[in-house]
Structures are given as C-alpha cells and as structure tokens.
C-alpha cells in the first residue's frame, strides 16, 4: 500500500513541478494522471498491486472529496440569488449543449468506424 501511495503521490508531485516549471496551463494532477498511465503501461502490475488498490480506494469515494468545495456554495448564495437567471440559463443550456455534442459526435464516429471495419472484413472474405 505504501508503494502504491508513493507511485500516486510521486506522479502528482512530478506533474505539479513540471506544470509550474514549464508554465503550462494544465493542472499538475492531470499531468500526473498521464504520467501514471505511462508507468502502468510499462510496468503492467497485477490486480493485487498496491498502486491499483490505492487508486481504487481513492476513486470508490470520489464524491466525498468534492463535499468541502460544494459546501462553499453557501458563501456565494447572495450573488447567485441576484443573478439567478443568467447563471441558471448559462449553466444548464451550455452543459446540455456540450453533453449532446460530445455524446452525438462520439457515437457517430464510433459507428462510422465500426461500419468501415465491417466493409473491410467483408471485402477480404
């Protein structure tokens, strides 16, 4: 478990340092995620490895980690109440537009690729 925690925290640390050093607009933990993905691809640990168990433990209760920021909504309740129309409209509409765009495009492209693969295998047979 300690080794697992070391891998996870180590990747974050490298990510945070690199992001600041190169002045990247990407947050350190996201770079850390890419780095850990690379490490896992090379080392290919078994299902019982500490890294996998630590990660699974953190992700099982991911929502817990968002509770403190969410409680912060109470500090801004006044502003939100005053500007509720543009805030609600902007959030809900653009959230839905983004969701429909990504889901629709991804489905379309996956299907298209699937169809291309089928026609290819059809020609070869």
């Amino acid at each position, binding site marked *: 478990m300690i080794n697992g925690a070391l891998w996870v*925290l180590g*990747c*974050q640390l490298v990510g*945070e340092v690199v992001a600041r050093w190169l002045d990247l*607009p*990407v*947050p350190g*933990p*996201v770079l850390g*995620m890419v*780095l*850990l*993905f690379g*490490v*896992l*691809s090379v080392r290919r640990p078994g299902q019982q490895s500490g890294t996998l168990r630590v*990660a*699974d433990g*953190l*992700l099982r209760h*991911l*929502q*817990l*980690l*968002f*509770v*403190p*920021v*969410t*409680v*912060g*909504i*109470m500090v*801004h309740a006044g*502003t*939100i109440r005053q*500007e509720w129309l*543009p*805030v609600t*409209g*902007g*959030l809900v*509409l*653009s*959230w*839905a*537009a*983004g*969701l*429909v*765009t*990504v*889901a*629709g*495009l*991804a*489905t379309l*492209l*996956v299907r298209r*690729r699937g169809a291309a693969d089928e026609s290819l295998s059809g020609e070869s047979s």
Partner: protein
Amino acid sequence: MSVALDYLRTSPLTWIFVTLLAYRAGVWLRDRTGGHPLAQPVFIAAGLVMALLAAVDVEYETYMEGGLLIHVLLGPATVALAVPLHRQAHHLKEMLVPLLVALPVGAIVSIGSAVLTVRALGGDRALELTVAPKSATTPVAIGIADQIGGVPALVAVFTMLAGLLGAVLGPGLLDRLRIRDHRARGLALGAVSHGVGTSRALHDHPTEGAFAGLSMGLTALLTSLLVPVVIALL
C-alpha cells in the same frame, strides 16, 4: 462546558468527522433509494453540512480547516484516474478519432454557448467570463478565470453545479438520446461534468468511468487552451 463546546465548534476534527458522517448518510440514502438520480452523496452531504453550519453559526472558513484535509485528496484521486484508464487501454486505439474530434468540438460548444446564453439573459461581462470555463475540473477552471478576468471564487461554485447536473441529470439525458455505448457516454459525462460526472460514471459502469476520467483530463487541457480563443472571437 463552554470550552468543550467551543472546541467542538472550531476543531478541524469535528468538521472532518461531520463531512464523513454526512457523506455516509448520502451513500446510505443512495442505496436506500436504489440509486435515485437525485440521491447523489455529494449533493446530500453538502446540503447536510450547510444546514449544520447555519444551525450552529459556524463560518465556511472555520469548516474548511477540516474540509481542506479531505479537499487535498482531490489531487491524488485525479492521478488515480490513470488506473481505470489503464484497465481500458485496449479500447483507446479504436476511440482515437472520436476523442480527437468530439472533445475539442464539445469544448468549443460548451464555452461558446455559456458565454452567449449568459449575455442573452442579461449577465455582465464578468459573469460571462466566470461561466465560460465551468466544464473544466475545479482547479483548472479557477486558474482560467483568474487569467481572463472572471471571478475565481464563483467559478468553483459554477463548476460544482455543472458537475452536479452531470451526476443528477446526465445518465437520464443520455438514455433519452439513446446513447448506449459506454465509451461515448463516459466521454460526454467527463467533458461537461468533470470529476463529479466521472464519479457517477464510475458508479454506473467501469468502462464509462474510465472514459469519463480520460475525457475530464483532456477537457481540462482543451478548455484552458480554448477559452481565451473563444472569448476573443465572441
């Protein structure tokens, strides 16, 4: 007695305990309701904590001395998203084109429609700039707002609300659109609702969770690159 009560109201330990307890209640309620979309543990827990803080008259800053100890784990948890992604690595190659097309277009649509809707509904420039980065994960969104002249403190709120929309309404809307491919569903949830949407996706299906995590990471990157461009164009 009052010394003990003061300790209880201001100790970080109390507020870590309360946060865990409220989250536990949220999980219990989710399981009790058979996973009702509104019964998201983060939603219930935050509501309970807010109610308690108001009842005992404790400021958010005091609460956050304990809350911060939970909050800092968000970084390692983001790194940990590499693990579900690693388990789905065999799907990555076939998803490369959808990833490279759907996510940038999705990010542009999210940012652009946010700015234009706020403008149409009478919000000022600062509010436009504050809603624009809300699809990116909280720490990234705050950084972007800082750069372009939004209100960083409010960005955290808007990002959380975008996340909650994804956890509460996302899967239902995707069902209605008849999007059944778990990879496409995950990409969409991660792209508009970052970590909160990802946690819902992880709960629903492992493939969905892995792609949501991937999508969240890439969207954070794309949003930070595209917000200044879209803002300049609009």
